[in-house]
């Protein structure tokens, strides 16, 4: 929901406010550092290309810098800045959700709302994927370091150290997902019909009201945007 709000609102204020809310919430839950890592990991690969393309190729009236054949315009920099804060708003929202949501509660709650356990598992696996990937990256980085890979020191050395991690992290994640789905098949996870669950996640009145308020806020924002009473998205 936060991601949608960030996109609908545009500008700097709302996305930055969402980032701040996510970071404060993460600090309250004791996962601020992990959220910062996850957010950077998710955002940086896209952010680099988005910023370069936006700043160097977007046409504008005020040229700030000339870099070879490229004119860096104020409009291009503004657009890149707005995209960047939106990306951070989205990645912090996804990261916070992943780091603070109990997969069990998520699956059972989706199932209670009529979704098939299979779909619910895919959703839960997605939630689990981010922290699992961070943990796995740490293990693989330690293994690579023990074989002499330099992952510390200058920014250049750190970036050079990231490349050998990407392949093993992604491949091992894919293998694990396949093995895990087989193990679940064996335990009749795909069986159609009712399951008698041992536990239901609590759903308090406060939580229900908060959810509806967030949905209402999004609808209001969309309406305001459609009415043209908000600065246009560049």
């Amino acid at each position: 929901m936060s991601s949608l709000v960030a996109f609908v609102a545009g500008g700097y204020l709302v996305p930055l406010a969402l980032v701040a809310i996510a970071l404060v919430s993460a600090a309250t839950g004791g996962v601020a550092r992990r959220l910062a890592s996850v957010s950077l990991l998710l955002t940086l690969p896209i952010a680099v290309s988005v910023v370069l393309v936006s700043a160097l190729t977007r046409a504008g009236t005020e040229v700030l810098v000339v870099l070879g054949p490229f004119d860096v315009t104020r409009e291009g920099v503004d657009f890149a800045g707005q995209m960047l804060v939106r990306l951070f708003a989205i990645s912090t929202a996804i990261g916070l959700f992943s780091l603070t949501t109990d997969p069990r509660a998520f699956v059972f709650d989706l199932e209670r709302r009529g979704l098939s356990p299979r779909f619910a598992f895919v959703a839960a696996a997605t939630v689990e994927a981010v922290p699992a990937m961070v943990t796995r990256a740490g293990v693989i980085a330690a293994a690579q370091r023990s074989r002499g890979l330099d992952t510390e020191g200058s920014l250049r050395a750190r970036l050079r150290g990231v490349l050998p991690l990407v392949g093993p992290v992604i491949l091992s994640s894919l293998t694990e997902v396949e093995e895990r789905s087989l193990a679940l098949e064996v335990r009749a996870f795909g069986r159609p019909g009712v399951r008698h669950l041992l536990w239901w996640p609590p759903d308090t009145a406060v939580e229900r009201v908060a959810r509806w308020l967030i949905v209402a806020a999004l609808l209001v924002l969309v309406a305001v945007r459609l009415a043209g009473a908000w600065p246009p998205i560049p």
Partner: protein
Amino acid sequence: MLELRGVTYRYAGYARPVLHDVDLALRDGEIVGLVGANEAGKSTVCLVASGLAPASIGGQLGGDVVIDGERTTSLPVHELAQRVVIGFQNPSTQRSGVAATVFEEVALGPMNLGLPVAETLARTRRALATLRIEDLADRDPARLSGGQGQLVAIAGLLAMGPRHIVLDEPTAQLDPEGSNLVAAALRDLARTGAALLIVEHKADLLDGICDRVAVVDAGRIVLDGPTTAVLGDERLAGWGVEPPSRVRLARSLAARGLPGLAELGWTA
């Protein structure tokens, strides 16, 4: 009864079959060990015997896999799961990821079968007790040692109340005590009439519990017979399998011209 009749199997995307004309029959109540070198095709036999290949992972199956008179290809995977279950080597990939405690993790299978809550609870408690891991019941399954995780994974399979079990290196991460617990649980299960197929590098474990042992080499069953005869076969090392310690000891004694074999009732 679990039977592989003239089974040939080729993984999706592979040019050649991994299994060739495999015949293997497990009678009810029988424990059969499967040994062979790495890449011999043991895990593939497990996947085929459990019906996951080709039902879940694709590929091309020739011949028949028959469980209690029904071909696996005629059954959906969730129905197969009530007849035969398979345990894998790596406990971390057998965790569902949706259970907060070991108890819930073990209960997941019975719950998926749609059993009443009381039956799910009873089966879960029984499975935990069988492997003597009741004290782990409230632990987070993601924070267990490899051995504990493997016991929890096996408990999860036992709680399904399967007719037959296929296990691919079930004790790879277990200490001797854990291996003995698993061995005892498997013997108990066989007594209820279940057929068990166990892939294991620890020949000593197979020596202690198996009625029969089969050797796989390059995707073919090259030897199949009573445990003592197969594990004492001179050709075993040539197939990449280390004989059990009693056989190695007997051979060592014999090589030095020392007596003891016959007195102990061992044959090598």
